[in-house]
């Protein structure tokens, strides 16, 4: 393992007694008694659409707050933070890769990667401590993810979907956040490129020591993960909002 990311001694994610209900909904969407990701652990969370996985990711990201239960990320209970502090905490400690449309179309691939550092003083500080500039780190990550220098300077709108997803991965990884959350990041890719992307992501998370919470409905991709969980089994909510 490389140098410890913040909170490496405690779990990357610890969820206990969680209850979440969408505003105006009659029943709970999520009821999870226990879900823990160890630091640096790479977990595949299987969840068919409508199983509440996006809600879970929003909760772990601190974008929404549960009605009951606690969520700790890198040892920090999110409920103890103010809304603004949660936003900063998310910028500092969590990298996101979405299904589609990860990038701002009017920025170059490089600027999209650097955006994560712009929002986070902690990521910039970690890069400084490691003795690299953000620019150099963006270039290094891009090279690791098979993005050539020419693609790095192109506007994001002109990149292929595969390139866009790799730029998104680089942006999530830059500045070494302790946790990477990926939400169906391969669903827009061709079948033969899906596994390649998952392997890249797994490799880079291992290299930076980040825990990975990879959410997908497609179990074929689960092969190289440390652990595979099924959201339907850990979520005890009686009903789930459709499409959430």
């Amino acid at each position, binding site marked *: 393992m490389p140098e410890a990311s913040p909170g490496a001694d405690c779990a990357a994610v610890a969820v206990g007694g969680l209850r979440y209900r969408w505003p105006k909904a009659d029943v709970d969407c999520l009821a999870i008694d226990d879900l823990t990701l160890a630091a640096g652990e790479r977990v595949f969370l299987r969840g068919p659409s409508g199983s509440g996985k*996006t809600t879970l990711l929003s909760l772990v*990201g601190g974008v929404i707050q549960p009605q009951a239960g606690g969520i700790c990320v890198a040892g920090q209970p999110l409920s103890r933070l103010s809304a603004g502090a949660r*936003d900063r905490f998310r910028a*500092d400690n969590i990298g996101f890769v979405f299904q589609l449309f990860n990038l701002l179309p*009017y*920025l170059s691939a490089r600027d999209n990667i650097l*955006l994560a550092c712009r929002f986070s003083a902690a990521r910039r500080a970690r890069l400084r401590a490691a003795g690299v500039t953000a620019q150099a780190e963006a270039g290094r990550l891009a090279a690791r993810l098979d993005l050539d220098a020419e693609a790095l300077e192109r506007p994001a709108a002109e990149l292929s979907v595969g390139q866009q997803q790799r730029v998104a991965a680089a942006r999530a990884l830059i500045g070494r956040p302790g946790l990477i959350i990926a939400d169906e990041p391969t669903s827009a890719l061709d079948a033969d490129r899906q596994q390649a992307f998952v392997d890249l992501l797994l490799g880079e998370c291992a290299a930076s020591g980040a825990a990975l919470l990879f959410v997908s409905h497609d179990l074929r991709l689960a092969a190289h993960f440390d652990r595979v969980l099924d959201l339907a089994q850990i979520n005890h909510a009686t009903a789930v909002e459709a*499409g959430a």
Partner: protein
Amino acid sequence: MTPMLALSLRSIGNRRLSVALTVIAVALSVALLLGVERLRNDAREGFAQTISGTDLVVGARGGAVQLLLYSVFHIGNASNNVSWQSMQRIAALPQVKWLVPISLGDSHRGMRVVGTTADFFAHYRHGAGRALAFAQGRAFAAVPDGIFEAVVGAEVAARFGYRPGQRIVLSHGSLGGEGGPRFADHADKPFTIVGALARTGTPVDRSVLVGLEGIEAIHIDWHGGAPIPGLSIAPEQVRKFDLSPKSVTAALVGLDSRIAVFRVQRQINTMAGEPLTAILPGATLQELWSLVGMAERALLAVSALVVAVGLAGLVAVVVASLGERRRELAILRALGASPLQIFALLAFESLLLSLAGIVLGLGLLYGAVAVAAPWLAAQYGLNLVPGWPSAGEWRLLGVVLGASLAASLVPAWRAYRYSLADGLTIRI
């Protein structure tokens, strides 16, 4: 906040066409509003200064507005004339510096004929103390050579294509006009045009100016508004007669010191022998403007509505773009932007666009003023003053800015709601 502002600029650059069109719409509406405000002010200013440098206007006893209307605007007729003796007594008052008599009653092709003295050209002022200027030729000469000489105003010269050297015939009476009821012409005694005045934007433009003796001369063989049957005196012979005027319609009076104006006014109003009225033209002009000034307010209201439409368009464009940009906002949220930062991003963007519109509108206005001012002055005698926005215009700009600030809150609030509701995924 700084990365957000930089992002906002990049995002605007990405949508430059629709943004540019919106900014242009706001700019046009702002230019219209300020243009109307400026024209309104300059028209009022110009109207208030139809006659300036004249301290008192004197006429027969009557209402102040009526006296101003017939003596300066040539609208309506005097109820009575003022005797020449009274004129001489007023001119002899110690505080009076100059007195220019005016004799009305005749016309030429619908334009008023003003009988006066050559002093009129020296003392009549309009606008900010601008004197009359000759576009062509000169003033009419003194008696006896100048009896049948005339000077035409800019509108008269332009409409009928008059130039110095042409001969014109005056008509008795001041009603009608071209195609109107024909009154008897003074065809036996034509006048020669010796000069044409530059445009002033005042009723002088629509006047034919002749000497008082000329007015006497064309009426020497008339009595009671009609030629005396059997009596005809040729132009060459009129010089032998006494052509000094018996009475005039009104007089413009200038004083040595403005401080004395109320004292002289009272002296004239209470003068024994003849009931007279003296008015302060500036004050009466303001009174008159309060009557005719309704239209300008309506105009301002309409242009204010145009600005409201422009800003509504801006809000519509920004709000419509939000639909496409919800993904962008969700990405920013995931990267750590707070809902307040999203709010600020959109508010900043709308405010920036309105500011750009306002600045561009000001530029348009100044460009238009620079281009149009000489033309407006020449065509309509309207003097647009280039220069920094007046206090009133700053106030209008402030109101526009306030309105755009309020308008910018609409998309910002929507974006704020979206960013709270969407979280990290776009729920469309």
